[in-house]
């Protein structure tokens, strides 16, 4: 059995040992303990959101809308929005976990301060928190798939790949969201996040094809991560791959890397300077 000192000394000469102690799993373990003691209600109820949207828009709006043209084919409106809702809930979940949740632990409960007083580094904290958000997103995506499949909304077995895709885009949002939050100090600044998110999600094409808009607005929408996320999941859902799919994937790779870079840097500056 090793002591704390032996464990830390073993890493003393590893690259980046000041930033990463190789123990992001300890942060995930913490979230599991918290799940048991405190956070199970918000987590358990989180999966209802996309289901409610599916019921409301699928069945209520479906009556008004009927069928939609998608990729040259005519599909039922409910089938059209299902992957969009999956993507949206994955992104929303990741955003909540990485913004308000992180803001609270950073500024109110000072939880990260306590973690970083141990041999853990900022990258352990960032990766651990993000991993937890992704595990949560993964379980929601699986639950959503389990509900939509029996309803006949899933076109084929290959659509199961939409689950890892949802986790992948959640990764992008979680790491980017955490980076932004770590720079924010006031509740007012946090309020701005919600304001930015509203149009981003309303316009991102989860509920209707964005081709209804004039070119300039369509162009702006195509710059936003939410659009790429929804399109990526939708491409996979319908197995409709093209060059766009590759662009969506690259978009999220960039988001993940920049998000992690800035989060780690900022946490180091906040707690190690």
């Amino acid at each position, binding site marked *: *059995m*090793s*002591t*704390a*000192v032996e*464990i*830390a*000394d073993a*890493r*003393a000469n590893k690259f980046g*040992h*000041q930033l990463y*102690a190789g*123990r992001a799993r*300890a942060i995930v*373990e*913490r979230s599991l*303990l*918290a799940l048991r*003691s*405190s*956070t199970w209600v918000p987590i358990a109820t989180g999966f209802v959101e996309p289901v409610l949207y599916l019921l409301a828009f699928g069945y209520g709006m479906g009556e008004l809308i009927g069928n939609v043209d998608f990729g040259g084919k005519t599909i039922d409106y409910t089938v059209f929005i299902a992957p969009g809702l999956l993507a949206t809930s994955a992104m929303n979940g990741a955003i909540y976990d990485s913004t308000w949740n992180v803001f609270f632990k950073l500024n109110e*409960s*000072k*939880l990260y*301060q*306590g*973690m*970083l*007083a*141990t*041999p*853990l*580094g900022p990258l352990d904290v960032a990766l651990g928190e993000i991993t937890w958000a992704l595990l949560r997103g993964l379980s929601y995506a699986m639950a959503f798939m389990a509900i939509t499949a029996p309803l006949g909304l899933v076109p084929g077995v290959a659509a199961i790949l939409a689950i890892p895709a949802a986790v992948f885009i959640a990764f992008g949002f979680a790491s980017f969201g955490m980076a932004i939050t770590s720079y924010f100090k006031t509740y007012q600044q946090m309020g701005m996040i919600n304001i930015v998110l509203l149009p981003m999600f309303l316009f991102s094409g989860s509920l209707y094809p964005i081709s209804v808009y004039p070119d300039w607005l369509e162009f702006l929408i195509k710059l936003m991560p939410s659009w790429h996320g929804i399109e990526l999941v939708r491409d996979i859902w319908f197995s409709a791959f093209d060059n766009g799919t590759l662009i969506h994937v690259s978009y999220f790779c960039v988001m993940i890397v920049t998000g992690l870079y800035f989060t780690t840097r900022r946490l180091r500056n906040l*707690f*190690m*300077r």
Partner: protein
Amino acid sequence: MSESLISARGLTKKYGDFTAVNAIDFDVAKGESFGLLGPNGAGKSTTMRIIAATSQRTAGTISILGRDPEEHGPQIRAHLGVVPQQDNLDGELTVTENLFIYGRYFGLSKKFIRAKIEELLEFAQLEEKRNVKVDALSGGMKRRLTIARALVSEPDILMLDEPTTGLDPQARHILWDRLFRLKETGVTLVLTTHFMDEAEQLCDRLVVMDNGKIMAEGSPLELIKVYSTKEVLEVRFGSERNKEVAPILRGMCDRIEELPDRILMYVEDGEALLEEIIAKKLHPTTSLVRRSSLEDVFLRLTGRSLIE
């Protein structure tokens, strides 16, 4: 001095134009209980954070267990137990879960931590609260839990930033008792405080800081000897008469301090001086002879004006 665990030379920390810690030197020996005293803003907490390897110095050198915190932050932190000024316990977890997960942050095995938790719960007198969420604990219990948490990794150095601020007398005494026992087991204590009684109780040696500088250094007794007298006589003549009497008293002892409500006279024998005063028919309305304390040293060195 025996083997020095912490050694700082010319240690300086600047935040922009503001110098929080200004070229200080100090050493802490193994097994010693070392105190940083000073008013708010003196630079105590900044110094603590540099020792804890969570803040980087601007200039000077510091070595902790022979290592530089800028190179070996995680390795140094593995030797330390940190008790911050404000408790940052995990509010979503219970008492035992707090201890458990903190051990996991150090990478300790579950088996080791589980055994350790029992020991720590007993030490912190929290056995009956083991499954309670920390939000439901009193201030004193939270403080004891924070200290227990800092001990989960069996640290060589325990860092305490104002350990008893905000606690009632009972809770303070329990805490002092626990810290004293720790010291007996060979743990080195580094603490900040602005309570003089606490410093006298806990510290073998201390430095008084003001404006980022070290003003004095020594054991509590040495400091009293150097910066104060054996006794202090406090006399009151009413705020009107204090002024006219003061010049007469001034000639009667080495050092005298006029405050708005009373006059302090620093002497070796307070009773004798009081008799002298009464013999001069200067009848004070109240009088008090007491031993000089660290508080007198502190006020002499850092001044009486409010620092905010």
